[in-house]
């Protein structure tokens, strides 16, 4: 009986620990696309684009980063972030 209670408690702790770790797992999952709207990030994406071979992905990434720059100039941070994110995705193709 005592063993069973101990087993149940351990199981609960394990499940709790699993849930507690979830946000960290998601955060790590998005680490590769940490898109901030600033000059440093835009320059980093531009450097990535320069290293790409010619093709559709490079054209798409260039357009996205140009759009991000335009939105940054208009102080539209969320729009800028979204285009930076798309540019980052295109550089990985």
């Amino acid at each position: 009986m005592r063993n069973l209670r101990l087993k149940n408690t351990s199981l609960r702790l394990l499940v709790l620990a699993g849930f507690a770790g979830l946000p960290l797992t998601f955060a790590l999952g998005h680490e590769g696309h940490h898109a901030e709207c600033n000059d440093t990030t835009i320059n980093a994406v531009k450097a990535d684009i320069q290293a790409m071979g010619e093709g559709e992905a490079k054209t798409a990434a260039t357009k996205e980063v140009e759009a991000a720059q335009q939105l940054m100039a208009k102080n539209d941070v969320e729009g800028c972030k979204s285009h930076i994110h798309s540019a980052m995705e295109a550089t990985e193709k």
Partner: protein
Amino acid sequence: MSDAGRRWALVAVALLVLIGAAAVGIYAGLYNIAADVPHTQPVYWLLETMRDRSIAARAREVVVPADLNDPTRISKGAGQYADMCSGCHLAPGMKRTEISQGLYPRAPELRRKTTLTPAEQFWVVKHGIKMTGMPAWGVTHDDDLLWDVVAFVRKLPELTKEQYETLVENAPKHEELMQKMEMGGEH
């Protein structure tokens, strides 16, 4: 002074003014060499073209060994690649490292297909490239070891994450190969 003479004098003065302006720009530190600010497209094109032409011209003399597809060579190259190259050039299934994100120009991701020939790849690995972070591995490694790396790099775009990891796991250790090289034996 004749018309032709006057024209030449004008060209010479214009050239001197251009050289003078360039010198003033250089000494004033006008060009930003920070690695987190990319070159303008014309400068990037100029440097990239100069790099590619320089490599192609020098790699013409390189004789490519016939056994680049030899599994032993590829296996020996895998261990060296994991130790010496993957930090910057990455590998299948590998996340971008801090150094790979900070290097400028970016180190090419070698899991993607390359336009370089085996001779050109060997030349780059052996001699390195100025102001890119690419070292001259020929200073410390003999040609045979460097060809192993080239053999592996040619194979890399075909590998899955699992195949890459298995190859690296079973590869002779880099230190062992270096020891054998230093003792002058076959490695």
